[in-house]
């Protein structure tokens, strides 16, 4: 690890790095917050591995929010990451507890900053769809990821993937989506 890696980056620099698509920012965030998160998780029935996994998830959630323009800088990034990790961890604990107690509805409702979409990302159904996406191949996989995950506009995708224009992307996206639905349908038939 280079010496500069240990340099304490301030929030504005980190946000600018993420906006530029420089994922080095994630490493900085990870290293700056690792100690705090491990301390919190290990004090709350978790392990250092749990903490590292959750922190990785949290920095990616931050990445998504910044890249899609939904991140509002109202508190320190570390405070945001702490809040996200804490919510995710309590949801994890709740899920583990669910094996013994069915009454986990309240905790589901208390999922805080996690939108219905964020919650579904962790579901089994999402796992199936994510696996099917791999079978879709290129350029569909990249196109769907750029549109639905990175939330790029049709114009941006056209430029990035060298399509003629936004309409071409729209049409291609429709075809890709249908192909993915077909793969999912076939997989379901096979597993049934």
């Amino acid at each position, binding site marked *: 690890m280079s010496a500069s890696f240990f340099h304490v980056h301030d929030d504005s620099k980190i946000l600018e790095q993420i906006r530029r698509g420089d994922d080095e920012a*994630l490493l900085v965030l990870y290293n700056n917050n690792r100690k705090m998160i491990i301390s919190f998780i290990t004090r709350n029935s978790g392990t250092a591995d749990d903490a590292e996994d959750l922190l990785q998830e949290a920095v990616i959630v931050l990445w998504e929010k910044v890249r899609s323009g939904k991140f509002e800088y109202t508190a320190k990034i*570390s405070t945001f990451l702490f809040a996200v990790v804490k919510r995710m961890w309590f949801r994890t604990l709740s899920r583990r507890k669910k094996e013994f107690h069915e009454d986990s509805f309240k905790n589901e409702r208390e999922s805080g900053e996690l939108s219905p979409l964020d919650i*579904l*990302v962790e579901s089994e159904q999402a796992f199936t769809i994510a696996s099917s996406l791999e079978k879709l191949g290129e350029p569909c996989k990249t196109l*769907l990821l750029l549109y*639905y995950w990175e939330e790029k506009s049709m114009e941006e995708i056209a430029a990035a993937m060298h399509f003629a224009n936004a309409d071409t992307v729209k049409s291609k996206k*429709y075809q890709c989506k249908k192909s993915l639905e077909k793969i999912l349908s076939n997989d379901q038939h096979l597993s049934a």
Partner: protein
Amino acid sequence: MTNIFPPDAEQPEAEKKYWTDDPELLEQYILGKLSPEEKAQRDAEIADCEPCRKKLQQETAFIAGIRRRGREEMKISLRKKLREKQPGRMIQYNSIALAAAVVIIAVGIGMYKLLFSDIAAPKYFGKRELIFRQPKASSVKPDEEKTETVRPEEESSATDEQLTASEYSAQHSSSKEQEAQGIRSEENILQGTEREETTPPLTAAGGASAVTTKSIWLVGNIIVQSQNISAAEERSSSQKRITGEMKKEQETVRFKNTVEGITLRQGSSSELSKEQQQVMKNESGVHTLVEKHDDKIIFTIFDAPLSKKEFQHAVVHLAADDSLIIDFPSQTIAYHLPPEWSMAAQKTIRK
């Protein structure tokens, strides 16, 4: 519901009966790209439309699956980079292990001496507690400048404070550097003014007793708000309760291995001086009065759209030695204390 949208090339007009049949609109809704007004309208329509809910659920799951793939790929990439960038970690771990061994031996010798000597010694490490560092301003009496703990007898363990506080040093140092560089700091969103009074400043305190109270006004910031509709409805109804008949609700907060001795309660700005009310009008945020009593710290959150139930489920966490998070079911409020009022968790030794 008969909300019909213009047809697009992907679906025949005859098949379009609901707004969820418009794929672009549906995607914008799921990805949170609609204006709050438009989203509220769609939410209301969904409530009366079973096919819309079904379609929404399907599409949300579909998009969630794609997003999951994105996250997984990024996570793999991040892990790979972490491995590449941290080859020295094992060496670091070895050094830590060596240091830990030395500490364990030293502690073992110390414990032996404590347990088997005649000197009255601490028997176990107690709970984490909050301390308030006194301001270094000239207005403070010299004898108050030293660190004051919630429990006076724990003063002797002040050296332990840094051990716990250091867990959060990374983000603290980051903040300091920001300030040094003149970059926008938390002071823009979180401010505090302090005062020392011989009586509690609020009628809301209920049965004010003549004890010395140190107080500080903080403006918290809602950093996380639930997007859950039910929670939003709960917030809305609790808002009505607060503005209608204000009841002083006071609940002792439960904690998860963090801090003890904090009491949360709701307050109404109508109980405050006109001057303070004006301050609150001028500055947005969650205005909160923090009062330190001999045996507890009271957070009075003013005009917060929170129900009694939410107060019952509140959890307080120390996010750093200068940051505190109060976590309600529907929202999370963050507070940053001014440097001279910084808070720290400390391990105390009980006799």
